[in-house]
């Protein structure tokens, strides 16, 4: 995968989320991603950035335009935090699992909305989640 464009956005407060979502929207428009794919990407991003703020207090997101061939371009977002990590990632990835009193939809839902979903988490050290959405498909 080749990165064409890259930027890091710090997430510290809720207001940063609005800026971040606008930025992702601009990236999606830049590569002419279709409306449905864009909506899915933005929704997945919204879930992950909220998790970051709630469970890790803060973090950052690396936004990239990536390509694997002349035909396939997409957006990769990497959410990096130094929070508590996810104790049981298998459980966390199932619908309805939450350590709060929420619905436990964020992680499994976000995974369904993107093409590539990759989690690395170390207890006590933090969590890195990378998602990629292709422009087509």
């Amino acid at each position: 995968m080749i990165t064409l464009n890259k930027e890091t956005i710090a997430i510290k407060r809720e207001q940063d989320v609005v800026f971040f979502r606008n930025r992702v929207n601009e990236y999606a428009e830049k590569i002419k991603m279709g409306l449905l794919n864009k909506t899915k990407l933005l929704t997945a991003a919204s879930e992950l950035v909220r998790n970051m703020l709630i469970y890790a207090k803060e973090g950052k997101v690396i936004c990239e335009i990536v390509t694997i061939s002349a035909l396939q371009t997409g957006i990769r977002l990497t959410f990096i935090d130094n929070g508590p990590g996810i104790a049981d990632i298998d459980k966390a990835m199932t619908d309805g699992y939450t350590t709060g009193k929420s619905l436990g939809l964020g992680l499994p839902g976000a995974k369904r909305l993107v093409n590539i979903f990759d989690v690395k988490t170390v207890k006590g050290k933090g969590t890195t989640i990378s998602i990629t959405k292709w422009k087509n498909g």
Partner: protein
Amino acid sequence: MDKIPILKMGDYLLVTIQVDLYDRLALNLESDLVNMINKHSSKGVLIDISAVNIVDSFMGRILGNIAQMSKILDAHTVVVGMQPAVAITLIELGLPLSGVHTALNVEKGMALLQEKLLLDSTVIADDTDDNT
């Protein structure tokens, strides 16, 4: 602090969400609406989300909460104008917005609310019939 305006039109409350909803704003809308329904004994709430580009699990839940709470306060809630891409995404996310009435646009939403009000009054009339 941003605020989403709520318009009172007779028995109804009308909300048009024109800005990007972040969590605090959505939470404020929820409590503002509950207060307004209470204060005006409103019978219906119409929420136009045609300008909203993303509804994630949090905002979906807020819409569900508003519908549930208005029901407790004896009002109906109709969400109108959800973009097709948003609706598809919500289903894939796993949040099918159960319990929230939806309509294509404001006009159809109003018609639905009026229908529901009418139905309410017939049900009450039926009840009295049964008692006699």
